């Protein structure tokens, strides 16, 4: 009886809904708990956590997940006491809440997978909850999922005399005696006698009062409890007598619980809630909507992705059409041109709208971090405060999901390795407690996320020594400070002097870099000895489109991200300088900018080799430095739909993806940040290969 008798299809659908909802509720719970950890007491947060647990419990009850219900019950009870101010939100309680959230979430996962948890699953946490509840006895047993009143198997007909005299106020709560009497009639054969004695004279008649009473005789197989149940909503608002007159005429009446006491209790429990500001907070301003019912709808992510893809294809189709349009010289026809421009505008707008659907604030990831900082701080015995900003910055949902791991890693590292212990900090003249700042902001079509600690900064001597020791760089290597810092991104590089159980071994920043690169982004590190370390993640807002400049190099077409392009120009002979080592720079407005020949980087033959014959596209990199990219010519500006190469190939250095051009040809999208690295490497390789050659000669 614990599971409602819905059809199996409906039940499966409800269950799906339930688990979808659980995912949202647990995320919210996690977020609120994070806020609670970060900012301590917050009644709204407690209420929200309570509601999340409560909602999961209600659903879990409906599907018969009894272990989950039982655990939720204790969890909820503690939360209830906290929000009522009957328990204190101290360190121990907070720890218990965090642990309980983990068990709770694990139980939901087990239920989702259709597995029954082991008997002692989360027992320690459950015990701690109970301990915090002072082992309140009423909590020992979770409410049974079965709620239906067992029907007494009585086959014999009995005769009842029922006296039902509602109080004058019965209608106030919208109860209707007629319906009750009709329901009574379904139990057997009913004879009704109406009592008009209390009907007042017409002048004194109040339409909102109840004056009638009834005496009824019911022949039924139902038990007295069944009959009492008919009146369960009104038993405190009427005079009710139920007598079994045929079987035992002298048996005491079955009456409802004493009404007076009930009402008194009701008022008693009602009164305090009236005084709670958080509970009667009503935001009337929100009711302004026309119907007030629907402000958001829920859509399967698959559908949104399909939509995004379709619009992507539409953009490509439109680009192809544009090309044909130009080639067929239809642009002479003003009507057609106007219509075409309108179409182009609409397509772009449509695309933006579709992209916006997928945008979400980074808050959902950020909110997990206060808890992490607290946990790791505890484990390492460090006092660390997390400051967050820009939580509302929006980014594609896929990006958000992929951000969780790298961020967790970096924050954990920052607490474990970045922030020094209190003694060291004090000795260095810093406050004993460390600070980690996590921030997000938009920058063009990218989101910038900074993870900054005020710790000791990277220990470059040790980094270099370790890198040499591990054979990552040759012992003779002369590296700049920045290059040494970059070493932490090398695979299998553990920076901690002692490997702790917090940060683990080795799976460090190289994984972070890989994750971020998979998102088409990059990660940089900036460290100041004694002051701290700052990691910057630069990630495109969306993985789907890019405003690009199509450039020609030989027979190939490449896309450069438009947002990084400062300008393009054809340099005069006098602007080009060749630097020792074979590199070229171009002088522009008194500044020397390195030149990179795309043709050389990607090995394209038959390209323009002389910058003065081709074009230089001036690009600004994320770190502010500039780069001149030498190409044959500019084809035009175009919004391109990014098609991942990594689905089919391994990551290609210097290439962040591919796209389909208007003429149906594939063009590669250049990863300009990688370009510098490639360039540096090619220069280094060139130098390295030159030396032996020179020695041989």
């Amino acid at each position, binding site marked *: 009886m614990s599971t409602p008798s819905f059809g199996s299809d409906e039940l499966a659908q409800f269950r799906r809904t339930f688990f979808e909802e659980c995912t949202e509720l647990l995320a919210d719970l996690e977020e609120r708990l994070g806020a609670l950890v970060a900012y301590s007491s917050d009644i709204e947060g407690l209420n929200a956590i309570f*509601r999340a647990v409560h*909602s999961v419990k*209600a659903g879990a009850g409906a599907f018969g997940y009894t272990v989950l219900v039982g655990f939720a019950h204790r969890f909820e009870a503690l939360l209830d006491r906290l929000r009522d101010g009957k328990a204190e939100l101290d360190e121990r309680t907070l720890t218990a809440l965090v642990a309980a959230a983990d068990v709770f979430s694990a139980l939901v996962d087990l239920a989702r997978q259709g597995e029954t948890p082991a008997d002692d699953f989360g027992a320690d946490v459950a015990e701690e909850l109970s301990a915090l509840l002072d082992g309140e006895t009423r909590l020992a047993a979770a409410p049974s999922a079965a709620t239906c009143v067992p029907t007494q198997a009585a086959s014999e007909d009995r005769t009842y005399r029922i006296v039902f005299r509602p109080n004058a106020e019965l209608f106030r709560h919208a109860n209707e005696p007629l319906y009750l009497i009709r329901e009574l009639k379904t139990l057997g054969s009913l004879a009704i006698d109406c009592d008009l004695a209390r009907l007042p004279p017409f002048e004194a008649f109040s339409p909102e009062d109840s004056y009638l009473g009834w005496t009824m005789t019911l022949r039924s197989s139902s038990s007295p409890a069944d009959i009492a149940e008919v009146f369960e909503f009104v038993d405190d608002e009427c005079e009710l007598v139920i007598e079994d007159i045929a079987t035992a005429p002298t048996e005491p009446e079955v009456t409802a619980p004493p009404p007076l006491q009930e009402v008194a209790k009701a008022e008693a429990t009602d009164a305090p809630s009236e005084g709670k500001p958080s509970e009667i907070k009503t935001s009337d301003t929100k009711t302004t909507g026309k119907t007030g019912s629907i402000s958001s709808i829920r859509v399967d992510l698959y559908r949104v992705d399909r939509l995004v893809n379709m619009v992507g294809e539409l953009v490509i189709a439109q680009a192809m059409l544009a090309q044909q349009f130009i080639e067929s010289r239809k642009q002479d026809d003003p009507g057609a041109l106007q219509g075409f421009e309108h179409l182009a505008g609409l397509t772009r707008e449509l695309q933006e709208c579709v992209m916006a659907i997928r945008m979400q604030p980074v808050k959902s990831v950020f909110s997990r971090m206060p808890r992490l900082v607290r946990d790791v701080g505890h484990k390492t015995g460090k006092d660390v405060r997390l400051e967050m900003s820009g939580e509302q910055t929006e980014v594609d949902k896929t990006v958000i999901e992929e951000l969780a791991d790298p961020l967790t890693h970096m924050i954990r590292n920052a607490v474990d390795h970045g922030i020094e212990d209190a003694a060291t900090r004090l000795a260095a003249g810093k406050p004993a407690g460390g600070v980690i700042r996590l921030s997000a902001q938009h920058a063009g079509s990218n989101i910038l996320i900074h993870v900054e600690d005020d710790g000791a900064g990277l220990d470059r001597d040790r980094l270099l020594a370790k890198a040499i020791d591990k054979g990552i760089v040759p012992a003779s290597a002369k590296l700049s400070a920045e290059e040494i810092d970059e070493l932490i991104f090398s695979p299998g590089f553990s920076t901690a002097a002692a490997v702790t159980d917090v940060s683990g071994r080795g799976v460090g920043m190289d994984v972070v870099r890989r994750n971020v690169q998979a998102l088409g982004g990059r990660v940089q590190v900036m460290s100041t000895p004694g002051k701290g370390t700052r990691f910057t993640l630069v990630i495109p807002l969306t993985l789907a489109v890019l405003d690009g400049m199509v450039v020609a190099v030989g027979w190939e077409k490449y896309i450069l991200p438009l947002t990084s392009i400062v300008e393009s120009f054809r340099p005069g002979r006098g602007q080009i300088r060749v630097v020792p080592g074979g590199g070229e720079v171009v002088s522009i407005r008194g500044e020397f900018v390195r030149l990179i020949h795309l043709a050389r980087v990607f090995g394209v033959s038959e390209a323009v080799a002389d910058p003065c014959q081709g074009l230089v596209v001036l690009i600004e990199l994320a770190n502010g430095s500039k780069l001149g990219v030498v190409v044959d010519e500019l084809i035009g500006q175009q919004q391109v739909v990014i098609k991942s190469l990594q689905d089919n190939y391994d990551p290609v250095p210097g290439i962040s993806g591919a796209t389909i051009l208007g003429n149906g040809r594939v063009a590669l999208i250049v990863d300009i940040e990688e370009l510098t690295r490639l360039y540096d490497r090619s220069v280094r390789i060139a130098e390295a290969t030159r030396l032996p050659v020179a020695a041989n000669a």
Partner: protein
Amino acid sequence: MPRKILTVDDSRTMRDMVSYTLRGAGFEVLEAEDGVKALGVLANTRVDLIITDINMPNMDGVTLVKRVRAGGSHASTPILILTTESGDDRKASGKAAGATGWIVKPFAPEKLLSVVNKVCPA
């Protein structure tokens, strides 16, 4: 014309279950996810019964009941509260606020229909 019922619950699972059951029995069902939204619906639509959860964000069920009973077009519309606990204090506070009756979660569809039938027959 079928009777109209407004179900108010922040849990979509619960709203779905209530709606499904009631629609199957021939009722027209409107949904709202909290008290504030419910009042918004009630301001524009006449319903014959309100079924509301108690624990909800923005405006809880007990406050909703009080607000509805305080006056306006639905002051005498039956209201059922959905409670998880069979705990009497919940029922009592709902009742004191002006609720007509209650349904204990989890409910069997037949139970829901029989309770609805008691205050708002189809």
